[in-house]
């Protein structure tokens, strides 16, 4: 998540993005990678990667990073297919721990406690509802330790877990979202932000089936107001399907905004923006802005970061079938600089291409203090590290470790054969119509059958799925 910052510098570094050839790390077993999280897990000063995936053997992978060179993936046993991982010191011992959302109908979190050297304990389970696909770790009750909000895909229920400071968790009141919808809500992504600027951490959930961004205000103690559901900006009257979200101050006005990929049937995919109007109380989201994300494929994942050092947040969008990675330069002129403050993105620039980039992340992986791009390729079973070579406003950045020849990544021809038969998608959310929402729901299923999760391991005492009877 990109936090809100006070941004004021002019956008003098705007221009084409330059990225070096990607480092592509292929997972050693069929993994259907779904998400990557980044943190220094072995205390060597470099951020390492943890790659969740729909791995039928119940593995995730740690990809060590040494001075910007990604190493051989190391197996982590999680006990199931995982769609999401968060990295945080859950037990307060000073070492980072891993918390995976295990995508199973016997829903659970899988927690691996870190020893600080890149190794971890055996996983411990925390039981959840039906098919958790995402979670967020943040201090929800204001007591200084990291709590958990976990999201079930097949129940419109957000489960709140309060940390006792040692990694023990007590359940808070569930939060029900998108109840007034006719179709299945099918929540897909979750994050925290302080949308009303009252100092506590609110929740935002993307419910793909309902096509709503559900904002849930924190009362300050980890209990929550009823959710307020917002549809995304319409594109030519069409409601897009949302699969992911990014949070950051894209209009540089000091509060946090939301961006979402929009999957459409009748238009190219877009990047939709919910601009936070900064209401003195409650929520005011303006939804007039959406920008083409590509002419190829379907926008699936989004991340925000300052790619060109001009101190505003640019967007990177991963696409599916085919799967270009596109970067959109933020050209918003903030009100504080005499502009109208309306979010504006340049047309997208392709910085990579494969089949289905299911997750993207922006972080400095090579230590040259500019922001690089990580992209998770579901179908080719790999993670791409796209080193940023874009000239930076800050001259100290961008010319550190990496000395490769700067050039834009050459667009590759996307493989054929992935065209989606829209007629065959069907009304997946049960709202009576086939729309981009259904296509989004279809794409969310690519990579693994949730019913395949049937291999609980020995340290999962409550596991009984191996006794499945048929």
């Amino acid at each position, binding site marked *: 998540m990109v936090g809100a910052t006070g941004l004021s510098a002019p956008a003098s570094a705007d221009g084409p993005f330059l990225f070096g050839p990607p480092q592509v790390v292929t997972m050693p077993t069929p993994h259907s990678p779904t998400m990557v999280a980044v943190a220094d897990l072995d205390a060597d000063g470099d951020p390492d990667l943890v790659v969740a995936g729909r791995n039928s053997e119940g593995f995730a992978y740690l990809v060590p990073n040494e001075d910007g060179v990604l190493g051989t993936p190391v197996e982590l046993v999680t006990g199931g297919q995982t769609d999401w991982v968060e990295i945080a010191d859950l037990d307060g011992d000073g070492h980072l721990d891993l918390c995976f959302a295990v995508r199973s*109908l016997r829903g659970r979190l899988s927690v691996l406690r870190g020893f600080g050297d890149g190794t971890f304990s055996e996983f411990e389970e925390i039981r959840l509802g039906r098919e958790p696909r995402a979670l967020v770790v943040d201090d929800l009750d204001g007591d200084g330790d990291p709590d958990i909000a976990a999201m079930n895909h097949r129940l419109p229920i957000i489960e709140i877990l309060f940390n006792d400071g040692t990694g023990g968790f007590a359940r808070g009141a569930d939060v029900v979202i998108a109840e007034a919808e006719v179709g299945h809500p099918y929540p897909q992504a979750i994050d925290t932000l302080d949308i009303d600027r009252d100092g506590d951490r609110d929740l935002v959930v993307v419910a793909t089936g309902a096509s709503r961004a559900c904002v849930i205000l924190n009362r300050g103690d980890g209990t929550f107001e009823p959710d307020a559901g*917002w549809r995304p900006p319409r594109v030519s009257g069409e409601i897009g399907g949302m699969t992911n979200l990014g949070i950051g101050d894209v209009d540089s006005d000091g509060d946090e905004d939301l961006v979402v990929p929009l999957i459409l049937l009748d238009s190219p995919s877009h990047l939709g923006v919910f601009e936070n109007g900064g209401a003195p109380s409650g929520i005011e989201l303006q939804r007039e802005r959406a920008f083409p994300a590509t002419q190829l494929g379907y926008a699936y994942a989004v991340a925000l970061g300052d790619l060109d050092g001009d101190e505003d947040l640019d967007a990177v969008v991963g696409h599916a079938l085919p799967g270009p990675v596109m970067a959109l330069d933020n050209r918003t002129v903030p009100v504080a600089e005499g502009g109208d403050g309306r979010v504006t993105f340049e047309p997208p620039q392709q910085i990579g291409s494969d089949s289905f980039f299911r997750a993207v992340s922006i972080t400095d992986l090579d230590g040259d203090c500019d922001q690089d791009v990580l992209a998770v390729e579901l179908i080719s079973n790999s993670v791409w590290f796209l080193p940023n070579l874009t000239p930076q406003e800050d001259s100290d950045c961008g010319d550190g470790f990496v000395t490769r020849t700067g050039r834009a990544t050459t667009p590759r021809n996307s493989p054929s054969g992935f065209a989606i038969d829209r007629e065959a998608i069907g009304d997946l959310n049960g709202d009576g119509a086939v729309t981009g929402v259904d296509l989004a729901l279809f794409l969310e299923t690519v990579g693994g059958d949730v019913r395949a999760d049937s291999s609980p391991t020995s340290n999962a005492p409550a596991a009984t799925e191996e006794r499945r009877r048929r």
Partner: protein
Amino acid sequence: MSNPLARVAVVAMVSLFTSAVQAQSDCGPDRPPCDEPHDGPGCLQPQCCELVCKNDAFCCEVVWDETCVEQAGELCGDVYCPDLGGCLEIHDTGGCLDETCCELVRMHDPFCGYGTWDEICVAEAESWCAGTFECPIVPPPGARAEGEPCYERFNDGCGGGAIEINAETIACGEFIYGKTTTRVPRDVDWFRIPDTRDGPVVVRLQTEFPARMLIVTGSCEGPISVLDRRPVDPCSSDEWVFDLPDGEYHLVVESGADGRSLRSGLPCDEIDPKNPPDDDEEPLPRTYGLHYLLELSCTAVPCPGDLNGDRIVDGVDLGLLFAAWGDCTGVCPADLDGDGTVDGQDLGGLFVGWGDCP
């Protein structure tokens, strides 16, 4: 006994003494599960048992052996109910003994069928399987029919990508005799709550199915919020009292339980003239009745002539008044002066209030 020749011989002999009726009686809750070999014929899941025995009579006439188990694995597919274990008890196998309850829960939550009957399945069973399912509601005189055929969608709120909320009005003191179904898209009934004063709003709901009421505020494009909810068990009634601050609110009646929507078990019982069923199409099984009776008690901000409660006196109200012309008894909102007759005085009262309500 897996030798095929031996099986044929035994079946031939046993068949002399058994009948198909007897074989069918070997399928049912007093038998062990179909996926376990056991002494004696037949097995627990009737649908699965009959499928296997139709293919291999030995299984229902002699013994349910390994071959029968193998056939069950091949033939039974999604047949999970009933199975061992009480529906209101957590157990580490899928399904439960009450076939109707088992089917209803697993239709909404497949894991309860093929996985384990866990605490979520039990909660769903407690919500959906209790009570008597045959309890037809007789609407009182003066109750207004909801008026939405179950193959149409007139009052489904923001369903269908609506930009504006589609809702009916309900007036203080009015009864609505409504129907809801789980036909796709599922039917939800939205009613705009009139502006009220002097005290709380009281809603009474009598229902034939597991229902829940929601109080919703907001707009379709957003934000939209469910402020509160209240489940009502099938074949029961409940009263819900709440205060609402100034603003626009909707009351939603739908099938479901606390935190969950019911999405099957309530098929439409009307024929869609645009899409009539085939002659040989069997009707879907219905678990509950489809009707509810909704009553709203409140004190509306006076707006003489606003007969449909939409806070504007217009031609719609005029039409309603003419429709009610003459003597009236019981609930009679068009009788503005309360003299028991809808007449010219009421017409005059309506014209006096013409336009937006105060």
